[in-house]
Structures are given as C-alpha cells and as structure tokens.
C-alpha cells in the first residue's frame, strides 16, 4: 500500500499542486495537496486517531497567502508542528505519531534557519525548488521516514531493534537521554535522535564517502561498488531510515578489515590499505585516492565536505555547527576549498571558531 502524505500550503493548487504531483510515485507514495485552514479546524482534522495519512508535509509560511474567503491563516508550520508534537503525549487524544516534513522556498528558508528553537520539530526539510531536480531522492526520503516511524514504534523503546544492531557494542552515552525516563519517549523523539544524532553527523555510523576515505580508495574506480557491497556489505546499516540514509557501522568495517588484512585500518596509509585490500579480495581495479590539492597526508579518516574527497583530519579545518557530542566527529573542509571560500558559497557553513586564527595565520602563504 502506498505511503500517504498530506501536504498543507497557503499557496493555491495552481501554484504548488505540481510539487505534490512530482513527489508522488504510483503505488509507493501519494502526496495530497490541501489548502491550509484556520488553526482550530486544521487541528481538528489532524488530531483524530485515523486521519487518513502517514505523514505531514508543511509549507513554512502558512500565513502569507489569503484563502478563498480573503482571510489568511494565522500560524506558521512551526506553530502547528509544535502543537502536534506536544499532543502526542496527551494520552486521551490517543493520536499516532507521524513524520512532519518542512518545505519552503529557498528565499524563505533563512527565516527557519534563524529560528533555532524550531529546528527539532521537523524530521526533514527541503527547498521547494529542489523538487524539480531531485524529486526521486526526496520521495524516497519521505517513504523512508514513514517506514522508519513504523520500525521505531514497533521497537517499543528497544534501541537494538531500532538500529538492527547490538547496542551493547556502542557507547552507552548515546542512549543515556532515553534511559530512566518517567514517561516513555514519543516516536518522534527517537526519530529525531536517530536522524540528528546518529545518521547525519559522523560517528560509529559513517556515510559512503567516509567509508571509502577510511579504506583509502577512490569511489570512481571500477572495484569500488563490489568492495562496498560484497566485502563490506555486512557492515551496512539495516535499521530505521536506513533505506534512504545509507550508512555503515564503523566497528563492523574494522572487524571485516582486520579479519582480512590482519591489522587495524588506522595503522596503514591509503596506499598500504589498498595494497592489502587488493591482495586479500582480488579486486585489482581498486585505486588509492590521491590527496586534495595542497594536502599531503594519505592517512585519510574523514572527507572535505565541499569536495566530498578524502582527507586526514590533521590537515583539515573543522566546520562550525552544533558542537559534536562525545560520540560524534566534526565535519571538515580542506585548505583548498577554504581558500576558494566554498564553505560560504557551497556549504553555507562558517569555519569553527577555533580554526579561524589558524586559517588566518597561514592564509597569506597562499595568496
């Protein structure tokens, strides 16, 4: 059965109906557009136990365009989302938790970025303009969110079930927020922690570019898909949201590498890692990645977020963002990308405050 999203917008169907149509996939995802109502009637529609949808897609500014009767809705997506998130804890209401996704015009997303207190309300956000270019990816994320919510709900608070991984092997501090709670956490709380705490930042779960960097190989070489899927396939994350947020478990990657090559990955540089992998797997097409221009080290462990290319964090510069927790790692940018200002123009992220002086001190050597 297709996953169903309700899409609320103050813009009329002529203008935004195409978004719903582009995102819908026959038999897989149905996105239904409806013009937004006033707060009370809108809420009454949404907080019935069976409201007919699996997820909610909201335009950020619901309060700008007048409705047919000439009046504007009096609230934004954040107000509505906050109300729904709290209402889930109202046992009498008995409503089911569901993903809430935000979409907005690129020009208006700045307002959302500025309002940091609302960042935890939405599971996922995308600019409306992106629908034209990457509808498939967005649709797949919308479906994965609903399936992930189902997995989390069924797991009844058991993290090992949610992650499809024995959490005894992980740092207990990752889950400490959820232990000894007087009221069980709502599904959206688990979803948020999973997405924003484990799937998006680098930690024991790593994305493909980082997996390749740690193995020392280029992703463009022919041998890469086989190495990734056949040799390291067993390390692939199988838990909630994993269909769209593709990740690998670092401890499993370590285990596979060590059982093949007999030494920890970190003890070898990229050329040595690739030589060992070629020798043990017979994948002779594998190629060791060369450093980004101006970098020298091939002891790769992370990537330059701008180039998505491997770097040794010792040569990288940390990017600002919410400060990593004990179990998470920083995101990095390479010197070359930094000199080209790609952190501002492409990533829209400032340099970490502790790196500013370091960069300033060496910048003139490259002018």
């Amino acid at each position, binding site marked *: 059965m297709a996953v169903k999203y309700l899409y609320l917008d103050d813009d009329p169907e002529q203008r935004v109906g195409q978004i719903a149509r582009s995102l819908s996939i026959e038999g897989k995802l149905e996105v239904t557009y409806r013009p937004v109502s006033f707060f009370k009637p809108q809420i009454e529609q949404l907080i019935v136990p069976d409201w007919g949808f699996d997820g909610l897609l909201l335009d950020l500014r619901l309060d700008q365009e007048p409705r047919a009767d000439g009046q504007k809705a009096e609230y934004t997506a954040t107000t509505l989302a906050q109300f729904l998130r709290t209402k889930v804890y109202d046992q009498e209401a008995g409503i089911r938790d569901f993903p809430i996704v935000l979409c907005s015009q690129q020009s208006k997303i700045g307002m959302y970025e500025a309002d940091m207190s609302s960042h935890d309300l939405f599971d996922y956000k995308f600019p409306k303009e992106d629908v034209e270019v990457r509808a498939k990816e967005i649709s797949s994320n919308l479906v994965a969110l609903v399936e992930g919510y189902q997995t989390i709900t069924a797991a009844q608070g058991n993290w090992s079930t949610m992650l499809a991984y024995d959490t005894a092997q992980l*740092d207990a501090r990752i889950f400490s927020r959820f232990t000894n709670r007087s009221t069980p956490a709502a599904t959206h709380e688990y979803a948020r922690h999973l997405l924003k705490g484990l799937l998006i930042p680098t930690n024991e779960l790593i994305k493909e570019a980082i997996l390749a960097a*740690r193995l020392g190989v280029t992703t463009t070489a022919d041998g890469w898909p086989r190495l990734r899927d056949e040799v390291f396939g067993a390390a692939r994350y199988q838990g909630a949201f994993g269909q769209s947020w593709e990740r690998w478990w670092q401890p499993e990657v*370590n285990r596979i590498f060590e059982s093949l090559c007999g030494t*920890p*990955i*970190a*003890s070898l540089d990229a050329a040595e890692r690739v030589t060992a992998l070629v020798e043990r797997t017979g994948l002779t097409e594998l190629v060791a990645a060369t450093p980004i221009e101006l970098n020298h*080290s091939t*002891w*790769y*462990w*992370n990537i330059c977020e701008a180039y998505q290319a491997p770097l*040794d*964090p*010792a040569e990288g510069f940390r990017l600002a963002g919410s400060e990593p927790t*004990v*179990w998470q*790692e920083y995101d990095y940018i390479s010197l070359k990308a930094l000199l080209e200002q790609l952190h501002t123009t492409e990533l829209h992220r400032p340099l970490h405050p*502790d790196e500013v*002086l*370091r960069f300033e*001190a*060496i910048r003139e050597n490259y002018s």
Partner: protein
Amino acid sequence: MIRIDPRVMAFRRDRANDLEQLATFTNKRGIIINQNPSFKEAIRSLRDENYVFRDESGELNSFLWGYTIDRLSVVIPNVPRHTFPVVQQLSINISIKFTANWQDWQKMLDPSRQLNLDVLLLGKKKDASTCLSSFHLDKHLDPTPLHAPKAKATVSQTEKVVPAEAHPLYHIQFGSAKIRKEKEAGSLDLANSGNLFMDTPRLMHHPLDLVLGVDFLLSNYFPDAWDALKRDGPYISLCRKYQAAFWKPYIHAIARHWDLHRDRDCWNAKNVIWPNLL
C-alpha cells in the same frame, strides 16, 4: 611586556588544539581528562598572548611553550592482575611539567627543555586505608651543559651536586624514595612497611610528553580503551605527530651511533619490539 611572535602563537594554538583533541579521544573511551583544572589552564595559557613561559632557571622566554599538569586523576576500571595487596579501587594521578623551544619542534634535536612526568598509583583497600606506588620519567638536567660556559664555582645551597650514578638523559625510575614526599604517604608508616625505598636504576627511556605519556599509560592501565583508540584514525595521527617530534630525533640519534641506514624495519620493530610505535 614581552611580545610573542605571531608564528609562535600560531604554533602554541596548534598545541592547545592537540591537547583538546587528546581529551576528546580519551573522553570518547570514557576516560575524562579535561575536567582537571590544570589541564584547562594549560590550554588557556598556550592560547594566551600575554602568557610567557619560563625556562628551567625561571627566566621568561617567548620562544618557549609547554604546560604544567597537576594531579590529573583517573580511576582505573579494572585493577591489573598481580596487584598486591588487594585493593577495592585504584586510581592514577598524572603530573607533568614540560617546556620546549618551538623552534626545536620536529627537528633532529632534543625535543624538550624540561620534562618531568610523575605517575602516582593510589589503591584503596577494603578497610579504606591507602597504598601507593609510583614511577616517574625525568629529563636529567645537567648542571653544567656543554654549550654554556661553566658557572663560576661558588658555594651555594642551591648548587646541584652532580650525581655519580648513571643518568641517561631521559630515564624512568620506579618506586624510588621520592614516594615519601607524596601527600598521601603522610599517614603511612612507610619505615615499618617492610619495603626498602631507594633510588632504583634509572632506566633509559624515550621521552614522553603529555600526548605520548597518556598513550603509554593507556596502553598499560587501560588496555581496552587503548585497543579501541588504536582503531581511531585521528588519534593515531595525533600520536604519530608527537612520535615524529619526540621519538624520531631520539631514536635517530641512538641509531646514528652505528650509522646503519639499511634494512628498514628488518626486525618488525613497529609490531614486535615496540608496540607503541605507530
């Protein structure tokens, strides 16, 4: 006021970042070292443009960098086997005083000006009484360095007496008579403990700064954490950087004695002879 060269400050900030990183890596493995006030102060001083380090004779010198860590205490989760008497709780106290000239960094020169790493192990027995063990790594300060003109012989109380025993430049000494000076020893009747406290041999040892010192202590007292850290690329990179700065000149200087430049890794030194070598 002494103005510090911006290059020195940039170097000092890098070293401060390294200490912060070290704490991040150990914290990740449940070993919290950055709550110690002197550790925080060490990072602050390295970054402070108005803070000038002093040399071994107490003179201000704007080329120096370093830190003083005082009694950084960590509980050892698993009491090592062969520990006697039986203790309920065991903790390790690390103190280090280190200074170096930034220009000597990663050169084929002695990497430090001053280095004293003191390790105190504190056991608590079932009856709440304490037992102690200690060792230290010192850089031996020659009172008459070769390159300085010999000071005029004056009889002063502070003048160092050149000891007759062999003093390798960097040496480790276990459980020496120094233990009597520990605060915790005050309540103990060491004289009647059945132990003999004296200067044990000064064993030649490669230098250990805080980064390499912590790695050395983890490898001995926190083997599980060390095992996990060996798989953590950036931790390995950090150690490798300090090994290049501290061990490369030291080992090279010794190897030069025989002038051997062939047979690289002929004896699997990295894995067998010296497990800490990365």
